[in-house]
């Protein structure tokens, strides 16, 4: 490596140095990490974009000129046209509008049950993991029971006893999902509890509450967010199944599952009635699952050597 070295009069004079304390490479923000993961996985990128479009469309549903509940026998079972993008169903209702409104219900149920699941599961899991001992053993046995239950069967049974409607649906779905979140958060809490920085905070005289809120919870957010994403997907699927069985959303309200049920009767002559809600479920569930993967990869601690 030949260097063309230019020697000047003060080349060998003492170098004036700036007095700063160097701090290393700035870590990229979490958003950049997420973007990077998305770029790596093209399928995930596409599905996340589709999901975004779907959510926006669903939110804009009230802009539709059609009333999703109005029956009009004269328009029944029309095919795709410029005035009916998805055609009409057996009651003459615009199917595209129905699909959007159905999406609102499905997504609402998905999000609400995710929130309940995360709150119940995280509270229990963190408490159990932090306190440990007999309390932990008892709570985990309790959790195991819920994990072992045949959820679908029990949901069906419960729904027949309880007053049908959205709140019931959300509660029942959360009841069978909180257990796995509790397990995850408990495991994370137990390993975090032993870490030096938690011990250091305890040594400073911090109350248990402070330790949990300021140190444990922020450090388990990663797995919790991932679990939340998967929980939405799961809830939408379960809701669809329940509604398909007639146990979830009641007429005339639509959800994708109930639309599937209605489409059964016309599966041979108008199969598209089943395809539209089916595809919506597919896209949504797949996207939330992939989003969960992306978030998990992006939130993994990066070691900057």
């Amino acid at each position, binding site marked *: 490596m030949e260097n063309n070295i230019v020697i000047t009069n003060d080349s060998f004079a003492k*170098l004036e140095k700036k007095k700063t304390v160097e701090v290393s490479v700035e870590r990229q923000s979490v958003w950049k990490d997420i973007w990077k993961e998305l770029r790596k996985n093209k399928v995930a990128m596409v599905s996340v974009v589709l999901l975004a479009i779907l959510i926006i469309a669903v939110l804009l549903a009230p802009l539709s000129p059609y009333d999703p509940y109005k029956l009009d026998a004269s328009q029944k079972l029309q095919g795709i046209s410029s005035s009916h993008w998805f055609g009409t169903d057996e009651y003459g209702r615009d199917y595209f509008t129905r699909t959007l409104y159905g999406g609102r219900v499905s997504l609402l149920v998905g999000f609400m049950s995710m929130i309940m699941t995360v709150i119940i599961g995280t509270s229990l899991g963190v408490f159990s993991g932090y306190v440990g001992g007999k309390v932990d053993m008892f709570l985990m046995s309790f959790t195991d029971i819920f994990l072992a239950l045949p959820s679908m069967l029990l949901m069906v049974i419960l729904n027949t006893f309880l007053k049908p409607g959205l709140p019931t649906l959300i509660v029942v779905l959360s009841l069978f999902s909180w257990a796995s979140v509790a397990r995850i958060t408990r495991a994370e809490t137990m390993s975090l509890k032993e870490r030096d920085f938690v011990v250091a905070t305890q040594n400073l005289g911090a109350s248990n509450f402070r330790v949990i809120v300021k140190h444990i919870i922020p450090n388990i957010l990663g797995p919790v967010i991932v679990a939340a994403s998967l929980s939405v997907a799961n809830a939408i699927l379960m809701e669809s199944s329940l509604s398909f069985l007639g146990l979830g959303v009641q007429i005339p309200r639509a959800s994708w599952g109930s639309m599937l049920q209605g489409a059964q009767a016309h599966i041979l002559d108008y199969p598209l009635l089943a395809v539209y809600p089916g595809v919506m479920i597919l896209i949504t569930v797949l996207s939330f699952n992939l989003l969960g993967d992306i978030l998990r990869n992006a939130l993994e601690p990066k070691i900057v050597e």
Partner: protein
Amino acid sequence: MNNLLEMKHVAVNFAAYGGTVQAVRDISFSIEEGQTVALVGESGCGKSITAKTIMGLVKKPGKVMEGSQIIFEGTDIARYSSKEWRKFRGKECSMIFQDALVSLNPTMKIGKQIMESLDNHAVTTSKEEKKKKVIDMLKLTGIADAEKCLEKYPHELSGGMRQRIMIAIALISHPKLLIADEPTTSLDVTIQAQILAEMKALQKKLNMAILLITHDLGIVADVADKIVVMYAGKIVEEGTVREIFYHPVHPYTKALLNSVPRLDRDGKEMLCTIEGNIPDMTNPPKGCAFCERCPHAMNICAQYMPEEKTVSSSHRASCWMMDERAAKGGVAHA
């Protein structure tokens, strides 16, 4: 003495999270037969990667750059194919690492693991002969109950024993060069003393060269013939043990020697430290990498990389202070 290994203009880059890290930047040094060379420096200086380069263990996202030559007994092994590397590793050149627990297979008995190493190099002998070879090697490495040891699993042995097993596996095919990457750092001091003594004895017996990678200058003083000092991917000084310890030239070498507290020295004065940190290797300075931390830094140090100058036939260093034009009372012959 013939040169067993010659490194010429070796450079290694790594594609990392923040950019491309220039881990090793154009280094050249050689190892003679039967010689012990210590590669010294702090973490991030590139010494471990240099060792891996000799074993062909640099894989994506690392890349040995074009123009690097690794000449082992006359052949440029940097050009080796995977097949040739497999023949080379373990037979011509072996490597032992810091943590034997991680390097040994936890589900395989010790005896089997050592024999596997023999098998890899297609030594066609009977099972009894192989077993005898293994037992002899274990005894050589200082394991008294060699027969019993064969039937044990790695986790059943102590740290020192595991390290000896790793040495046995590495040396069973009598390689000409042993690369030891911080071989005793994770061991207790008394066990370390045992292992080092055993390694020295083995080296004499097998007429083997050792490339010792470490940051512990005490071990170096005990074991090495020649020292190569690395900083930020470059060699800053090279010389015999006495030359480096008693007549160091480069300011980094001097600072390193001064920052180690000595057991045989009294006094509670402040230790000499090297202020600052190593530079960012994704964007290394265009001049001397030690410039920012060097008490003798001159303007030219920040602008151009220092040229290598010889102090004696075995002693060379790269520092602008060695230039005649540098201020009087400079570094040249301390």
